């Protein structure tokens, strides 16, 4: 038997099975639908990001025009919105929207991108509480149900297809009495099962990867080959895990019905029950620090600061002696006073938030250990991370925006404290946000552990199946 005849025979056999044919067709349809969904979402995010960037340019142009007019002798529209004031130019009117471009593989994995904010308005008043804004204005019901994207199809439905294709690779031959015949030829049971599963894996994984590649073609996501490789690796490893699990169950030499029940049970436990149980156990064993406490602490901080303005100004000038020159010693300007209070609030907020974030990170690190219990959790982590829609990329974006807000303040605050005005030349020097997207290497480093564990699981089950199948003889 050449490889080609084996494959052709297998294909005929699969296609002769009507339910399986329907399942394969349905799976293909769902893959395409999931992709369309992901592409629509990617386009939405791209449009939003473009609009935000266009807004940055428009605002800067309008302010430049106004500044030029004022220089030419025109009166500002109102003394509260005079663009020469640094707290106006660097405030809400002159704000800069910092954006996170959609992850290169968002079309394949929507991930956390419908929940976490991917743009923030930055101005001199940006502080820790600005990062508490929500993501998109999604219906909470939709968020709860989740998106129908390729990652969902891979994590939930692909295992079921794999099981439908392979729960009876060996047991059926025995039940139909063809096993003895097959094994009378110069092939081993291990070889037969391996060949059959390899063909089925090629079919199932091939469908997913083909649709993924189409998605990347449509959205132009080939810019990050490292991410694509990781995504494919996760799909392949996860799918193969289910194939070898089926092989192992087959090697136990029970009936096809028993195999099916056990495999579906395994799917239910690993994909549905364990993750949900971990999520509830996590809340009990490692509760996240109270967010409510942080909000109230933030609020306290801002009130205290407002009540102690002048005292704070003195301390601010002590900390920033370079700014003291601009402030007239006997009568500090209103802007300087206000800024001193703002700065104190920011400092306090940073303290409170840093403490909260540190405790949150601790708890999350503890919870994340449990993901090794389920291949579905491991696969999800890599699929999200590779797509650039996981928690890490959003956290990285947020810390970049935090640093950018700091630069923004450094640019405007000296003028505010000194009570100076700004002009068009200052506008051209205003800081711009440039996203330093994480490198593929960094993503790969993060994904290495879950992928390795997934691979080890796969290897372990494969070895067990191999050993047991090696003992199968036609006579049994």
């Amino acid at each position, binding site marked *: 038997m050449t490889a080609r005849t084996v494959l052709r025979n297998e294909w005929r056999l699969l296609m002769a099975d009507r339910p399986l044919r329907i399942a394969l067709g349905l799976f293909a349809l769902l893959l395409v639908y999931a992709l369309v969904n992901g592409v629509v979402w990617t386009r939405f995010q791209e449009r939003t990001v473009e609009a935000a960037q266009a807004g940055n340019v428009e605002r800067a142009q309008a302010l430049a025009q106004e500044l030029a007019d004022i220089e030419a002798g025109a009166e500002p529209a109102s003394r509260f919105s005079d663009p020469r004031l640094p707290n106006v130019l660097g405030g809400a009117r002159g704000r800069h929207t910092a954006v996170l471009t959609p992850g290169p593989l968002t079309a394949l994995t929507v991930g956390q991108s419908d929940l976490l904010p991917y743009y923030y308005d930055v101005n001199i008043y940006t502080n820790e509480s600005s990062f508490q*804004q929500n993501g*998109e204005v999604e219906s*909470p*019901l939709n968020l709860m149900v989740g*998106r129908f994207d390729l990652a969902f199809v891979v994590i939930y439905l692909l295992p079921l297809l794999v099981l439908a294709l392979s729960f009876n690779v060996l047991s059926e031959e025995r039940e139909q009495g063809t096993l003895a015949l097959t094994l009378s030829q110069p092939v081993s049971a291990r070889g037969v099962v391996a060949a059959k599963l390899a063909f089925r894996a090629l079919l199932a994984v091939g469908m997913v990867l083909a649709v993924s590649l189409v998605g990347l073609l449509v959205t132009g996501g080939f810019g990050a080959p490292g991410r694509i490789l990781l995504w494919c690796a996760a799909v392949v490893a996860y799918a193969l895990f289910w194939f070898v699990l089926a092989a192992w169950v087959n090697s136990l030499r029970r009936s096809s019905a028993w195999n099916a029940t056990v495999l579906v049970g395994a799917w239910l436990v690993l994909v549905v029950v364990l993750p949900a149980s971990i999520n509830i156990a996590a809340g009990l064993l490692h509760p996240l620090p109270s967010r409510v406490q942080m909000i*109230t602490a933030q609020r306290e901080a801002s009130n205290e600061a407002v009540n102690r303005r002048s005292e704070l100004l003195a301390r601010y000038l002590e900390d920033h002696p370079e700014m003291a020159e601009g402030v007239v010693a006997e009568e500090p300007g209103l802007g300087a006073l206000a800024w001193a209070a703002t700065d104190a609030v920011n400092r306090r907020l940073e303290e409170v938030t840093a403490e909260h974030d540190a405790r949150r990170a601790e708890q*999350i690190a503890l919870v994340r250990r449990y993901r090794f219990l389920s291949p579905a959790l491991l696969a999800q982590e890599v699929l999200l991370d590779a797509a650039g829609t996981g928690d890490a990329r959003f956290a990285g974006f947020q810390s970049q925006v935090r640093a950018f807000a700091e630069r923004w303040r450094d640019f405007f605050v000296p003028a505010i404290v000194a009570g100076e005005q700004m002009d068009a030349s200052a506008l051209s020097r205003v800081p711009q946000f440039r996203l330093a997207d994480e490198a593929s290497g960094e993503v790969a480093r993060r994904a290495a552990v879950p992928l390795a564990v997934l691979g080890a699981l796969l290897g372990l089950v494969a070895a067990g199946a191999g050993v047991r199948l090696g003992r199968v003889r036609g006579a049994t």
Partner: protein
Amino acid sequence: MSTWRAGLRNTLLVARRQVGAVREDRYVIFLLGLVIALGVVAVLGARHHAASEAEQRARYQAMVERQWLEQPDRHPHRVIHYGFLVFREEAPLAFFDPGVGAWAGTSLFLEGHRQNTANFGDARHATGMLRFGRLTPATVLALLLPLFVVVAGFASVSAERERGTLRLLLAQGATPAQILAGKVLGTGAVAALAALPIGVAAVAIAGSGAVGPVSPGRIAGLAGIYAAYLVGWVLLTVLASAFRASSRSALAQLIAVWVVLCVAVPRLGASVAGALHPLPSRAEFTAQVERALNEVGDSHNPQDPFFRSLRDEYLARYDVGSVEELPLNWGGVVSREGEAVTSRIHEEQQQDLVEGQRRQDRVLSWAGLFSPYLAARDLSMAVSGTGPEAVEAFRAQAEAHRYDLIQRLNDLHINEIRYENDRAQRLPRDSWAEFPTFGTRPPPLGGALAGRTLSLAALGLWLLLPLLGLGLARTRLARVGVDRAAE
């Protein structure tokens, strides 16, 4: 009378046979133990989670109220900017079905000039793992119990046929209807055995008052919803078992149905809803509100036409020449009128957004016709008081509270503060004690259910269709698989 009695006896006999068959199946007994254990863990876990959240919220709400009262002598406009913080209280039954709670904001800052959105949803703070859902009593009942029903009942009729005992039963005078009814009863009894511990634990917690007052109507409603939902699964399982050629194909088909109804259709529905009724991005929404506000005017700009005509109106009404001569504080009037206008615009925009979200939710309700899981969850959320309408009710109540608070402060500004040297004046601290406190009022049960006729109909259909199938096909019971056996 005697035939009626004989019928009942036959039905109970078959039911007892079914329970006996299940008792001998170690696999099913193991699953029964697993489902019960998961259910009890879910009840206790969810109860603990809900209790600690509720305790925290209550503690900090009390703290915010105390801070409000402890404010020093202040200018009322300073208090408008000081604002107030409210927390969304979860409904008492959130421990049973948390609904969309984790996916909506929990705290809302109330201040003058703007409507903030509720921040700090649970999900924002957790990791992507939360996408797999949390094990809650509602999840166990709606998602896992149906599978247990399938495993306990897929062989109910088909095994009798495969062993040849079905013919025996028929020959002994049991009618197909009696056999099917008996199998439904038997499988139902096993399902009830699995569901009961969860129900009892949940009712005990709700009844103890530890989570807050729960009306018996809500408990009865939940019991009814899940009973109907599970009975539907029992009927469908027996139907498949009776009319598929073999136990094996019945099991395969039932599992496929479960995957489609409980896993695939909900997500399909949500994505179709998003595609049919797209929402604006947050940036777009903010820009829309800004544009609408700019059209009206800028209360900080004295040259603004809206506020100029307002001033002329007041000058004419009190027959004076300038705002300084008005018997009330003009600054306060501008603030009050400005607040009225901006609040109205914010509310209009917010209503548009909420309407968009409702349209999406309605698509999901329609999807409920194809997925009893969605319909049951929808009703369960409504009865538990944790659905999207509860989140919206909180927002609307908080906004009403905010508006009232700000306008009371503006009235103080108008009447208690003189126009000249406005900013230097203060109101005594005991003024702050005269403001109403805030408490979330969950939407009433009737209202929450009234908007869900579609889900109620879907659940009814879910009961009716398999029942109809059983009724219509019962005469074929003896013939199923006969051709195949003859081969």
